[in-house]
């Protein structure tokens, strides 16, 4: 099936034969980090560069916020390139706008694979969008690394051996948040506010919450209040909040995108309803929420406690924790290489996932084939990266981070970590365990060491 990239294969062979004439033993041993020279070991890899591609919602309704991720990743790659690259190769990151429309994702991914001959598809964003191409990328044996979505559908090793998730899946996250709710709000009334119905973000998250909370300890109030993620929908979540208020819900567990977290908090405030909000990481980035809510959209000075107490979780160091060495590293790089980006969770995400890619590329060896990087990721948990918990990666598991730490928004909209990092899997009833590892610190030059 490798006929699809005749040029690249031809080049690889040519380079190999040329070298073979001089240095007989050099060619077979791709992946070794010896003193061999750089070769065009795979499509997208030349002696001096690695080209990777991605599809992202740079425009359209999903663009606000998410359109920062790829430029942030690119800022980190520029930083690495300015400091010698990976095995002397500079990373060339080509991200294309699919407008969160799977039709565009399908054709742009072909463009990346067939025309631009990318080595790997990296951090492509969205569940319905990426589901359109996951079969294709695996048929073509293109590494499909670190999909930007917490759907647990990326973990299907037998059908999709080249596909890897990255962020914690929504079910595991829901379990850990549920665990926190059970401990912190024992005996209280808990209600769900979620994207959906029939949306994997809301559905998977609720499955995780239910797994823990159905067992008792709190009173679950049904039904789940769903919202449809449309532009005008944000004006209409007041009824949902009022229903929760009427049912006496004290804790709102929310799997919502930032726009609707903000709308829910504002709507609740407008009817003098002040429950505790426990929100999925996706919808709780403090800089984003603050920007949306504190510009006077409620028409009054915000009650000081409006955002204070907002509970969420994180699998990366907290974006506002400037004393954390990872945060100062990534913030510094963003400031230098992408000065127009705001400093928020999306930018941190983009840089951190780029860091994991550089780790993987280094682990794959000097002259990696496409399969080499897959094997390298499967045999590593990358515990020396920015993540708080290890990756689940193994030959039989392609899920991303295994755990999160709960964080609560304190005064001045600064998040504070609460309790230990917990890890879990997505099985029902699967244990939620404390992670005992110590947090890592970045290498001094900010680039993963070999």
């Amino acid at each position: 099936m490798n006929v699809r990239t005749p040029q690249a294969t031809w080049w690889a062979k040519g380079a190999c034969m040329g070298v073979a004439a001089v240095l007989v033993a050099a060619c077979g041993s791709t992946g070794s980090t010896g003193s061999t020279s750089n070769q065009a070991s795979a499509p997208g890899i030349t002696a001096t560069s690695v080209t990777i591609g991605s599809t992202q919602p740079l425009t359209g309704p999903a663009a606000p916020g998410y359109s920062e991720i790829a430029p942030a990743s690119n800022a980190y790659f520029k930083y690495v390139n300015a400091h010698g690259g990976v095995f002397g190769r500079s990373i060339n990151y080509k991200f294309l706008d699919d407008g969160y429309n799977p039709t565009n994702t399908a054709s742009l991914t072909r463009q990346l694979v067939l025309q631009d001959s990318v080595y790997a598809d990296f951090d492509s964003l969205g569940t319905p969008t990426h589901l359109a191409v996951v079969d294709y990328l695996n048929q073509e044996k293109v590494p499909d690394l670190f999909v930007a979505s917490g759907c647990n559908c990326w973990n299907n090793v037998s059908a999709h051996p080249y596909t890897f998730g990255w962020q914690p899946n929504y079910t595991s996250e829901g379990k850990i948040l549920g665990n926190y709710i059970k401990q912190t709000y024992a005996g209280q009334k808990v209600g769900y506010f979620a994207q959906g119905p029939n949306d994997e973000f809301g559905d998977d998250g609720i499955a995780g919450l239910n797994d823990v909370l159905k067992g008792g300890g709190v009173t679950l109030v049904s039904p789940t209040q769903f919202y449809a993620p449309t532009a005008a929908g944000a004006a209409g979540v007041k009824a949902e909040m009022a229903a929760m208020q009427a049912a006496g819900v004290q804790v709102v567990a929310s799997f919502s995108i930032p726009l609707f977290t903000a709308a829910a908090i504002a709507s609740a405030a407008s009817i003098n309803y002040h429950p505790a909000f426990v929100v999925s990481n996706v919808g709780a980035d403090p800089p984003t929420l603050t920007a949306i809510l504190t510009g006077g959209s409620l028409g009054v000075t915000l009650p000081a406690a409006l955002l204070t107490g907002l509970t969420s979780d994180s699998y990366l160091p907290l974006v506002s924790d400037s004393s954390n060495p990872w945060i100062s590293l990534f913030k510094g790089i963003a400031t230098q290489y992408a000065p127009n980006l705001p400093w928020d969770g999306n930018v941190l995400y983009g840089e951190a996932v780029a860091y994991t890619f550089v780790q993987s590329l280094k682990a794959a060896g000097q002259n990696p084939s496409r399969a080499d990087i897959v094997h390298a990721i499967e045999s590593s948990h990358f515990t020396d990266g920015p993540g708080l918990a290890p990756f689940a990666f193994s030959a039989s598991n392609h899920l991303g981070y295994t755990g999160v730490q709960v964080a609560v928004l304190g005064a001045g909209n600064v998040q504070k970590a609460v309790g230990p990092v917990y890890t879990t899997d997505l099985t029902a009833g699967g244990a939620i365990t404390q992670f005992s590892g110590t947090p890592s610190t970045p290498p001094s030059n900010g680039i993963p060491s070999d």
Partner: protein
Amino acid sequence: MRTFLILTVDGVTNGFIYAIVALALVMIWRATRVINYAQGAMGMFTTYIALYAISHGVTYWLAFVIALGAGFLLGAGIERVLVRPVESRPPLNIVILTLGLLILLEALAPMLFGGQVKSFPAPFSRIDLSIGTTQLYISPFDIFVVGAVLLTMVVLVLFFQRTTIGLRMRAAAFGPEISRLLGVRVGRMLTLGWGLAALLGALAGLLIAPAIFLYPNNMDEILVFGFTGAILGGLDSPVGAVVGAILVGLVLSYVGGYAGSDLETIGGLVILIAVLMIRPQGLFAAQRQRQA
């Protein structure tokens, strides 16, 4: 009861905002027989202008006036530069032209003002009023929205019924040939019509932004709902447009609240089709025809 009350207030206030968009569409339709699909995006763009002014120290009310003025200039400019040359072409060309404009404005806004979701201030509190412990589910801002839209409608009616220029505009729209013979500068009237319609669009953008926040696509559905309202009421009738839009607001709110948010737009669709099957030119069509 409580839910019903909230859904009703929500539906009416949203409906009033759809009504401004519907009025803007009706104005342009009556003047030039064109549906301006860029109406929503123009309102989004002028709201960004207002926010830009506010972030540079301008007061809300001055920014409000600036946005309305910018809307007027934008509308008048688009009529003169873009719409006039294609006026004699098949109507579909103008449809595509306004769609192109919609896409262009939604791309230009993040290029000029940044792509993040932004908060847009409300001039009055959006916290609901209460009497004693009884929650009223209506906020000062809701009252302002309803008042602003009602005032706009009264001003428009007076403008078209009582002022010379308003009469000329109506004449230019209904009988351009005869009006021209009578010395009405028809072209200038059309430009004025587009300018005023865009001013209404700007008003809609300013009033909806505190609730749905500000980003390039934030008016996409507002346009669809406004258009639906205008059609429901009958495109030639301003009163019909307002009634239709409020009806759309209520239906969406009730369907979303009682049947599930995922059914909201389908609910709107069903109502629209049902009404059009009985009255293919909208609820207020017959009255219009008798007038004409």
